[in-house]
């Protein structure tokens, strides 16, 4: 378990990490919407020189059904090099894989094998009893162990959601992270500015607000999340909440600058109830407090109501639905998924206050059903959803499913299953890489994690 020299996938700084070799495998969480058969970790070959490039190289079924895999993370990452509690001789080896619906947390070993092997399951009762949470979601490896955000409360409570801490050796739940949560109730994603002892969290909704689909009254009543929360990572206390305005529903994925000397980050907002637009906001620290500013706005696209799912027919428009964003490790490029309109946008964010759109690609979409260039006659449903960037910033991976119950509302004819890869420099789809349809054996692909780390897996203590 302990090594003689640091795990080679740990890098002191984002600059060093950008020199990392290309990933040879991608791990993809895939789930069965019907909960009839087990969800799975699909392993995709991402080595262009391999004969199996772009195909499923490994597959591991989960032990149960109905987990609804969503996001997952590594047991250890570059933060192990941080000088305050260094432990660089541990291995990046285990995937920590929560079931968003079942509240089980699975630990999978990836070492010396293609298909991961199950080594431990943390049961929902344990998570509820020790941390008071359910519906575990985002996983980050950090200073006190593994931090796992959770959308729901437990023991009969719908909320508040928050963060549970797991021991990073034994994977036992050690407890609830928050000592003082202040006004925070809704939870979703979180990350940190590790050198400033700052944790940031975002808001989606509690289990009752999301698990049976998006609730129109709640959305139009502006009841889904619309705030960011800033915390003292050391004291585990709430410091400040920042409201984006309640028309901006669902600030989801948080992407702080990788450069640990910089205090800013981006968050994508799914939809504005005023005009169905989506947006990306910048948070930054100025004048002694946290502030936010909308830096990207993406308008809804008018459409004939006849071609729209019942949910959208009254509006006669397709919302872009920014459901995921990704920031390259060098903090220069931001990728924005528009899951509704079927578009992925690339921005130059070297000046984070003024993103400049560099390019856009269309694939899938509620109206367009645009095919992938590798199969130009195959209409695709779903849109670019989870987006992940390789450490060197040259490759971008997409999958098409958002969340079971919500897929069904926006893509009622079936969201399908596909994964795509974009060459970031040319900003074009790789026509050799298109796992889709039966490659995923009837499951829907969600988050992608790249072997050795990616742009949303590691934090760095050195600039």
């Amino acid at each position, binding site marked *: *378990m*302990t*090594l*003689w*020299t*640091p795990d*080679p996938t*740990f*890098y*002191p*700084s984002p600059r*060093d990490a950008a020199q990392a070799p290309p990933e040879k495998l991608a791990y993809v969480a895939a789930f069965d919407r019907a909960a009839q058969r087990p969800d799975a970790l699909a392993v995709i070959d991402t080595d262009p020189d391999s004969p199996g490039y772009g195909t499923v190289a490994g597959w591991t079924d989960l032990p149960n059904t109905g987990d609804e895999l969503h996001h997952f993370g590594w047991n250890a990452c570059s933060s192990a*090099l*941080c*000088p*305050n*509690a*260094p*432990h*660089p*001789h*541990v291995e990046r080896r285990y995937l920590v894989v929560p079931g968003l619906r079942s509240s089980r947390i699975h630990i999978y070993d990836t070492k010396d094998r293609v298909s991961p092997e199950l080594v431990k399951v943390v049961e929902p009762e344990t998570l509820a009893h020790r941390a008071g949470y359910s519906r575990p979601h985002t996983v980050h490896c950090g*200073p*006190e*162990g593994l931090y796992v955000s959770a959308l729901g409360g437990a023991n009969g409570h719908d909320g508040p959601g928050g963060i549970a801490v797991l021991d990073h*050796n034994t994977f036992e739940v050690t407890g609830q992270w928050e000592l003082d949560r202040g006004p925070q109730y809704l939870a979703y994603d979180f990350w940190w500015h*590790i*050198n*400033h*002892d700052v944790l940031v969290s975002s808001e989606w909704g509690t289990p009752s607000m999301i698990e049976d689909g998006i609730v129109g009254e709640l959305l139009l009543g502006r009841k889904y999340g619309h705030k960011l929360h800033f915390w003292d*990572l*050391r004291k585990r206390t709430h410091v400040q909440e920042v409201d984006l305005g309640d028309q901006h529903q669902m600030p989801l994925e948080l992407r702080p600058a990788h450069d*640990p*000397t910089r205090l800013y980050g981006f968050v994508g907002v799914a939809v504005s109830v005023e005009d169905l637009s989506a947006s990306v906001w910048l948070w930054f620290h100025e004048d002694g407090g946290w502030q936010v500013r909308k830096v990207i706005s993406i308008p809804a696209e008018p459409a004939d109501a006849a071609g729209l799912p019942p949910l959208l027919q009254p509006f006669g428009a397709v919302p872009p639905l920014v459901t995921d964003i990704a920031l390259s490790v060098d903090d220069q490029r931001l990728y924005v998924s528009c899951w509704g309109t079927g578009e992925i946008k690339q921005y130059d964010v070297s000046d984070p206050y003024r993103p400049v759109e560099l390019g856009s690609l269309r694939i899938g979409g509620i109206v367009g059903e645009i095919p992938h260039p590798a199969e130009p006659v195959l209409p695709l449903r779903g849109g670019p959803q989870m987006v992940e960037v390789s450490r060197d910033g040259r490759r971008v991976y997409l999958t098409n499913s958002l969340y079971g119950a919500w897929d069904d509302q926006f893509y009622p004819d079936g969201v399908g299953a596909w994964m795509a890869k974009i060459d970031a420099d040319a900003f074009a789809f790789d026509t050799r890489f298109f796992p889709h349809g039966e490659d995923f054996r009837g499951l829907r692909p969600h988050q992608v994690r790249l072997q050795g780390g990616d742009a949303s897996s590691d934090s760095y*203590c*050195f*600039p």
Partner: protein
Amino acid sequence: MTVTAVVLLGAFHGLNPAMGWLFAVARGLQERSRDRLLQSIPAIALGHLGSVALVALVVAVTGSLVTGAVLSIGGGVALVAFGLWRLLSTRHFRWVGMRLSLWQLAGWSFLMSSAHGAGLMLLPVLTGLHVEGGHAGHAMSGGLGVAALHTLAMFLVAGAVALIVYEIAGLSVLRRAWFNVDRMWAVALVAAGIITLLQA
């Protein structure tokens, strides 16, 4: 011989990235300020001195109450046990927080050194002061002298390494050169325990 051992152990502790020079480099890089790096090293050394001096005091006080042989056997056994635990345990020092005042940094260094048993590694030297039949007062001042000399060596080495990494070598060197000192360290603790026992 004793002086050499004390200085070499100090250098060994200074070289260990976990003992503080890496923290000093991070603090310097965060503010892009060599001054901040240079201010950090004395605070780290102060915490280290506190940890080592505490062990020296405990040994001196205990030594005034028991015979040299009992001291050596007790200390040696404790040291071997601690070393084996360090060798076999996968637990590591945990600390949350990167933004520390200089006093907090000294406190961090004290805890980090203590958790690693930095002072314990000097047990053979410290108990040796008693075994050689010294007066209790001499043992006390001798012990503190050992702690001071040890920390001076640690301070100089840690400061030099921090400056070289900050100014010239860069941190990429960590990826290859950060040998698993913890394991070596545990072996050194066990060895120090055995030497202490042999003195009895």
